[in-house]
């Protein structure tokens, strides 16, 4: 087994967590178990949503897979290679805005290729293609501050696509956006995923978002993987599909597994007017 912490390796491979623990020591001396004995295998090309309440270990799981956080015990492998550090094979779209504000849109998209030593012609060709994919061709020379939040997220997507990464790690990337922008980015992401063969880990606390996007939902609670649900709803998952008894039952299952009872939800949020 090899160690994976650089730009080596290519191709599509399964992601495996084997007994992964991640324990932090709080300033008070108390131990925080962010991940507890997490094990699973995700075949290459699958779209996985990781769902759970805030502070229950979703982001830690993603950071361990990204190589940004070493596990306390256990290991993460990509194919035969053990993850020991960040790599271009596992690019991440963060919850906060991490598009580099000092680079124009094109330079942001080309950053990965430039770091990997690609020639200018290849960089230009790739960035043209990726910007067209995300609908930002006309904004190639814009500064990020001149773009809306949704457009900056598309820049981040284009940058990850240009990197050639086969595993995309997305940590609540659309959480700060309005509903309509989020829905348009869902469509874009699904289109990009359909056209490629990449594996996506998508962290969210939004059950609807998970059901729209993923074909597998992992439920995380108190750092443990409490359920692993296959989502076999037909695509595209529009409002009609999400209103089917099967989709409603899935939502209920997820809520139950996360320890959220129906009566905990405020009536107004459920749509009850009485």
């Amino acid at each position, binding site marked *: 087994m090899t160690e994976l912490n650089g730009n080596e390796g290519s191709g599509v491979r399964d992601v495996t967590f084997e007994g992964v623990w991640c324990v932090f020591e709080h300033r008070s001396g108390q131990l925080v178990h962010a991940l507890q004995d997490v094990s699973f295998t995700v075949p290459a090309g699958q779209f996985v949503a990781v769902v759970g309440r805030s502070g229950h270990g979703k982001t830690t799981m993603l950071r361990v897979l*990204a190589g940004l956080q070493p596990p306390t015990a256990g290991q993460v492998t990509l194919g035969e290679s053990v993850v020991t550090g960040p790599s271009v094979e596992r690019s991440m779209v963060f919850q906060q805005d991490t598009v*580099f504000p000092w680079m*124009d849109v094109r330079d942001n998209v080309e*950053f990965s290729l430039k770091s*990997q030593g690609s020639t200018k012609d290849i960089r230009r060709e790739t960035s043209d293609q990726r910007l*067209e994919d995300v609908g930002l061709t006309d904004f190639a020379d814009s500064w990020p501050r001149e773009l809306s939040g949704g457009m900056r997220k598309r820049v981040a997507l284009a940058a990850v696509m240009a990197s050639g990464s086969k595993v995309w790690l997305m940590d609540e990337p659309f959480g700060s956006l309005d509903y309509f*922008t989020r829905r*348009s980015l869902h469509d*874009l992401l699904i289109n990009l995923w359909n056209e490629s063969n990449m594996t996506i880990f998508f962290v969210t606390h939004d059950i609807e978002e998970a059901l729209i996007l993923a074909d597998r939902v992992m439920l995380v609670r108190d750092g443990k993987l409490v359920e692993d649900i296959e989502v076999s709803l037909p695509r595209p998952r529009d409002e009609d599909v999400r209103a089917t008894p099967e989709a409603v039952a899935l939502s209920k299952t997820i809520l139950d597994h996360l320890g959220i009872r129906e009566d905990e939800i405020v009536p107004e949020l459920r749509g009850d007017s009485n």
Partner: protein
Amino acid sequence: MTNRTDSQTLIGHPEGNSGPSPGAVRRRKWIIRLLLSVVGVAIALLAWQRLADHVGFAFASPLDIWQDLRENMWKSKYLEQKGLSDGGGYRVHLLATVWRVLIGVVFGAAAGGSLGLLSLPIKVIREVINPLAAFFGAAPIFVAAPFFLIWFGITPWAQVLMVGFYTALLMYIFARRAGENLDAGYVESAMTLGGTPASIFRHIYLPGTVPEIAGGFRIALAGAWGLAAISELLGAQEGAGFLIKFYATAFVVDGMMSLVTLLGLVAIFVDRIVVFGLSYLIRWSESGRSLDL
């Protein structure tokens, strides 16, 4: 492939809207600011003139200073008689000070800024320099200046060294703080996009820290003028500070105030050039756009 764009969220002016363009609004604001500045300077000059008229010969008026500069700026018979000029007037002494400041500031900023940023990933640099920076940072530089000149002599290069040291110290502290304040998310994002240590330093740390370092650079530059003048007061043989000391001893108030004013104007001029350059470097940020760091 969906090529949907939410570009309508950009600030813009739909066709047919007759409102002013952002460029026109910016220009109008700039003109108003310029007019207010001119009014402010005019009021200050009038007040200065009135005060000088009231105080008398011990306080030169703006008109006195203007007269003095006309007589001595390019060629000064008075300085020639005193053996303080080979015919160059204030210009020669001022240029000597300007060069010392600029050389000291440029080399000091390059050294201090680089070390400050490199101290983030390289622990050895951090551990060697931090105690020194803390010690010299705590000691007021104007108090330490005489010792500096005693150790290194009163040659022009000793003054350059002192300005450079002071600039490097400030820039080290500012660069280090700027690096620490840079959002870790940018670095982590770069790492997962395949960034190497070299590319992350060049493309993330360097440009990302410029806005904060720029503020430190302007503070260092402003302080460098005072430091250079003080070092010249302490025993140089040329320079604006040296002439100020000479005039103070001879009680030539007009000349003394002319040189102080001249030094201030040069400092403002250099600062404006620096602001212009920095505003280009950080044109991607709001502060860079407004020319107001």
